[in-house]
């Protein structure tokens, strides 16, 4: 894949820190004492074999799961549990491994829902279409159109998303997340199930978001080529534990990672 890391962007301080996160479901240990951090403006990949706990980690970050132990530090503030609503309000947006869209609504409406938290006018003003509400609606429509242009989905803006093919649905999900103007964007396997061309497009979008808006990206991805290409740092999980953490090159040559991927017995 021909997308390099040549933008010379500045990676800042730690924006999101996870310390000693432990999460279990009944007898299943999804995460065991996992700690790592995410720096501002970086692309941080989480990789690992199936069932390693990657999605669970993302769910802890945006509050879908409440860890039994550990703290989540976001912009210097400690949380034992991010509530989803609070996480969104603090600027954490996400997409899902199994797409979660508002299937009955159009692409545009899906994106407008993403602006939910940015709208201020009360519902009476909106219902009556009074001046301030109209201005607000127009302003948010403009923001939504900008995202639509950016992700090259103009032609489907009025289509109910349930009718779109898989690849485009993934793109709409990204669009909705971007509509939140997030500080941190969590992407759970955004390229899974895509063909090569779609993958390249998606890579380009992720990098452009990161570059253009300076959005911090946390990315789960199975395609090693993609991971090595677009991420600044990689954390590797296996059976709920962190087994490696570093630059793509460091991780690639780490014996523990090689063993995990080759399925060496523990």
């Amino acid at each position, binding site marked *: 894949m021909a997308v390099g890391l040549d933008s010379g962007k500045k990676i800042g301080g730690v924006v999101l820190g996870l310390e000693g996160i432990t999460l279990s479901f009944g007898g299943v240990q999804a995460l065991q004492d996992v700690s790592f951090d995410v720096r501002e403006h970086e692309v941080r990949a989480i990789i690992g074999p199936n069932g390693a706990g990657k999605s669970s980690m993302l769910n802890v970050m945006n509050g879908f799961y409440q860890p039994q132990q550990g703290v989540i530090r976001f912009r210097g503030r400690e949380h034992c549990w991010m509530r*989803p609503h609070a996480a969104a309000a603090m600027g954490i947006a996400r997409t*899902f491994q199994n797409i979660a*869209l*508002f299937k009955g609504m159009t692409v545009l409406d899906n994106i407008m*829902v993403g602006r939910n938290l940015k709208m201020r006018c009360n519902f009476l003003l909106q*219902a009556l*279409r009074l001046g301030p509400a109209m201005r607000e609606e127009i302003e948010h429509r403009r923001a939504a159109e900008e995202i639509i242009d950016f992700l090259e989905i103009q032609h489907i803006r009025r289509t109910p998303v349930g009718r779109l093919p898989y690849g485009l649905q993934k793109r709409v999900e990204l669009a909705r*997340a971007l*509509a939140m103007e997030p500080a941190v964007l969590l992407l759970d396997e955004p390229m899974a199930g895509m063909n090569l061309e779609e993958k390249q497009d998606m890579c380009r979008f992720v990098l452009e978001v990161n570059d253009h808006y300076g959005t911090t990206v946390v990315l789960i991805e199975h395609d090693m080529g993609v991971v090595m290409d677009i991420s600044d740092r990689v954390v590797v999980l296996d059976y709920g534990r962190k087994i490696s953490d570093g630059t793509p090159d460091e991780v690639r040559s780490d014996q523990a990672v090689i063993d995990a991927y080759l399925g060496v017995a523990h």
Partner: protein
Amino acid sequence: MMHLLYSIFVDPFVQMGAAPDLLVQTLWDGLVSGVLYALIALGFVLIFKASGVFNFAQGIMVVFAALTLVGLAEHGVPAYVALALTIVVMLVLAVGVERLILRPLVDQPEIILFMATFGLTYFLIGLGELIFGGDPKVMIAGQLGLPSGSYRITMAGGYVQLQKIDIAAAIIASLMVAGLGILFNRTRIGRALRAVADSHRAALSVGISLEQIWVIVWFAAGVVALATGIMWGARSDVSFALETIALKALPVLILGGFTSIPGAIVGGLLVSVRQKVGEFYWGSLVGGGIESWFAYVIALVFLLFRPQGLFGERIIERL
């Protein structure tokens, strides 16, 4: 045999043609009680759409709202103040349901939530009887400014009688539906409601608060229940016998689709008109009493051939 076929396929239509005034009267009666079915179904749909809960208590909410209103009036509270207070009570009920039922049970299977609404039903019956007693009461329609009496329109040698309260009911119901339509389609809250109906996970991820949405839909359903209770109470008594109207709304829901607001309205009108017309023209064939079961037969036919209802989204099992 010939006689039977004749009385099924010919005679009723001859009667309709011979006395169009009676036909119009029957249709009108059907439409009017259809408005009430539609309102109850609307309450169901609101809650079902936003929280996936089949609210068994919708019928009793109608009674409870009407009882509260009448009970307050009996204690000397002026009618409009009582109305406002009842709306506040419905808001308190919505907040209570969200805190005490929905929030603790959030990730439980739907059947558990359904059972919880059974519990709510009996709680509301008990509470209503405790506070206001079990005797039937008279709706304070007059004090609320609702008209009484009727218009008589002569036509085709006969006349059609239109109760003013029925006309008022139709107008109020239409206004309510229009209001909900505007809320759903124009506002941020409406968009959030539709979003929650589609996907809880996705709605949460963009910062929509499920708790807030649940309070809003239960409150909206409560206000719809109050309106239904006033209208229904104005035509008969306010008593717990009213609760069975919830069961009558079931065929309406099956016909209209559980998730469709237009479906609830059209379904309500259709079911009721067919009931009345069926009873009037074909009822004697089976010894009368069609009204009480005919709707269920229609519903059954729909379940067999169009399970998603008239307007409901198509149910496609993904394998």
